[in-house]
């Protein structure tokens, strides 16, 4: 084959390839068949403590570390009746701009509370710029069985430290009741509002 004229050797490569195994993945039809690699950097997630409180303390270290200036955070103080995380401080505003993010994971390294990690979600495409700025509610990890949605109090008798030492394992009855009460009251308010406006 070495003696083939150069023009033909090119054709030969093409011809030979036709019989090789196809590497093209059928997306999105067969997406599930080819999951990303375990350490793939996908969309971010804001994690929760086992009782549902947020891990993010609004410290802005992720925003500081980000080389692309993709993160915007504004902290606020947890107050009696409006607690989102254990301790004094939580992230009131949390946004990641996926038009800027380069998925380098510097933010993940910076996060002191392991609040920020990355998922395998990679299909971040859309029709407008605004929708690609993800807000906190889009980034927060879904609630599991054991969790209830903040704001709610910390597990009675625990400190911030107990949360970090893994001593809190799930929402207590007290916390569930608190949240149920709040949600009921909110629904009642909505009904009143709806009646008032109709």
């Amino acid at each position, binding site marked *: 084959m070495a003696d083939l004229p150069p023009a033909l050797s090119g054709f030969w490569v093409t011809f030979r390839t036709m019989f090789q195994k196809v590497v093209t993945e059928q997306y999105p039809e067969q997406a599930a068949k080819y999951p990303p690699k375990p350490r793939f950097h996908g969309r971010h997630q804001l994690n929760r403590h086992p009782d549902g409180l947020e891990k993010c*303390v*609004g*410290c*802005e*270290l992720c*925003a*500081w570390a980000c080389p692309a200036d993709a993160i915007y955070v*504004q*902290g*606020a*103080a947890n107050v009696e009746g409006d607690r989102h995380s254990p*301790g*004094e*401080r939580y992230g009131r505003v949390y946004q990641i701009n996926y038009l800027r993010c380069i998925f380098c994971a510097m933010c993940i390294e910076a996060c*002191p*509370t392991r609040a920020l990690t990355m998922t395998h979600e990679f299909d971040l495409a859309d029709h407008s710029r605004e929708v690609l700025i993800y807000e906190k509610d889009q980034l927060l990890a879904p609630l599991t069985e054991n969790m209830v949605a903040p704001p709610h109090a910390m597990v009675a008798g625990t400190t911030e430290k107990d949360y970090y030492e893994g001593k809190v394992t799930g929402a207590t009855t007290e916390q569930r009741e608190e949240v149920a009460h709040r949600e009921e009251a909110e629904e009642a308010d909505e009904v009143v509002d709806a009646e008032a406006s109709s």
Partner: protein
Amino acid sequence: MTAQAEGEAADTDLVHAFIDGQPVSVPKGTLIIRAAEQVGVEIPRFCDHPLLDPVAACRQCLVEVEGMPKPQPACALYVSEDMKVKTQDTSTEAEVAQKGVMEFLLANHPLDCPVCDKGGECPLQNQAMTAGRTTSRYTLPKRTFPKPINVSAQVLLDRERCVNCQRCTRFADEIAGDPLIDLMERGAEQQIGIGEEPFDSYFSGNTIQICPVGALTSADYRFKARPFDLVSVPTTCEHCASGCATRTDWRHESVERRYAWEDPAVNEDWNCDKGRFAFKYLSENRLTTPLVREDGQLRKASWPEALRIVAARLAQAGSRSAVVTGGRLSLEDAYAYGRFARTDLGTDNIDFRTRPTSQEEQDFLASRVAGTAGPTYADLEAAPTVLLVGFEPEEESPIVYLRLRKAVRKHGMRVFSIAPFASEGLEKLSGELLATVPGSEAATLRSLPDDVAKELRADGAMILVGERLAQSQGGLSAAVALSEQTGASLAWIPRRAGERGSLDAGAISGLLPGGRPITDAAARQEVAKVWGIEALPETPGLNLAGIIAAIAADEAGAAAAEDSEEEYERSIEALILAGVDVSDVAEPAALQRAIDDAPFVVALDIRPTEVTAAADVVFPVATVAEKSGTFVDWEGRRRPFAITFPETQMFSDATVLSLIADNLDHDPAPRNVPALRAEIEALGAWAGERPDVPQVPAPPASPAGDNQTAVLATWRLLLDLGVTQEGAPYLAATRRPSVARISAATAAGLGIGEGDPVRVGSQTGSITLPVAVTEMPDGIVWVPTNSPDSRVTESLGVGAGATVSLSRPTDLTEGA
């Protein structure tokens, strides 16, 4: 020793030493840490602060000094001849000592930087990196405290983070004179704390700024931002005539905090809490579009429409117009108003003093203050004696108070005050009171005790007069006479930041820019040349009182003319009001009536007010954050500030005026700050003759009050109901409580005691406040001018020196 002698001594009294082998020559009495800075060696430190006395509390600055057995604190040891100092850069001993201290400091430190507001600008973070170990060897449980606690409504203390450097306590004690926080307990439990009273000092915010860790933080700024988010702009505080250099930190078109900026000649490193925390008004409740009145209602309008209406009406009114500005304008804007009035309207009816004033004050300002360079902070600090007349430095010009306190502490300055009682501020200055019934200031000035008069003859003595003296007939004349007799220099210290600039800019009738009398042909010519016009009004126009009177007279004349079906020629057809609050003047009702009666009213303001509600056309204007400009402090020193929000859409007052001039088809007026500054510079100060000083005699002694009446004493507190303090709840919570002060005998006469309510009444209304029995002459009652439950102008409609009624509120109910 005078300042000059000190300077000479410094030249001859140099000591020579070596720091890390480098030779240094410094004046005797220089600390090692300062000398090291001069040769570029930075020794780590926490407790050291150049403006506080050394304590060597933190031990972070240990250095090796040849001949001394142990490492020495560089912040507390003075350089001596031939001293050989080795810092962490050249000495292992020093380095090991510093690392050891840092390890101890961190042993109990929570290291919760992520939730700490100091994170990112923390000396402890930085120095732990330069002088600390990479890992911690301390594994035992740390000491913990509940956190944070409030030392005042606006200062939060996290005791876990405190490194016990005592900067805060030393500041409160040495600088502010409010030793309300102190070091308590011992050993590991050592902590900062308060006693019974909260740390409600007017200067408390400075401790937040100088705390080298995140132990003291601001309730207002809590968790709002990180230093790297913030854009910092050098600004000048707009709240008083002290002229503090400040730094405004903002993000997302919102001011997040203000810090004191260093200016050794003015505010040193400090500012007051008003300057630090009162900035919400910049963004809340703003006017954003022009408004015009149609069928009795104000509606939104476009700029061209509003400008056309105003131009048409002003063209008709011409010199029958008047301009009143509110004393908060920048130099450039005030200048633009003065220029607009004289060139575009052809009138001299203008006044910036929306407060109780007098003709005597106007004459005093024209003869002694406008366009002059008076004594400075440095002169104040060096003065052996200072006489305060109708002036409460702590309430009205806090940095003046801090300078006085510094001088009292450092060289025993004597402070005398002509006032009805010794205020808290005067007591902190160890001042001596020359107790005076409001209205009798002139009499006191003219018959000073011999020792005071003698002290005032000393080199560098000063007399400081406040805006309140304008309300006391003959007071300013007597102050000038005293200054001339004794040789003591005289300084007028207004309250608002824009007053001195407005005066120098000529926003007052009878005075052109730079203190030029309008009656002087040469002065008029100088100004006309720069303004490119033929002629200026030759006689002084009306001041605020004159404008109000003229409108009232017009109204009466018009009513009379209507009866006889004649045309009435008004003297004021159009009134332009800029940043005026009706309640600022002594008789708000009269001003409000004038605004209601004036045929055409234009208001320029940042927010809706009673004035804008009554105006025919309203223009929104820029706040200090939306424009650049200059304030002129009480010294006459220019204090320029940069624009905070460069992308703003708002126009400054000067720009709006130039747009009106365009619509009048007049020659273009300077529209932006550089152009205005160039004109102001070109004009400079007046070198010619000045009007005579006022010679108003002291009024005859008024009978002191009896049991039913009293003479009213009143002044504004630093933190009160001022509109620029709106939206700052933590600041408001540190206000001094509103009380009515009367003497023990007056209280006894009324049959009431400490804390009981007393009713202060006038023709128009009354104020009821709890009594604070105070050492003061009988027959006087003092209430704050504009504090909660005590709005003197609105309720009483009179100023200081008026006679008011005093009663027990229960008397009324019994009678009813």
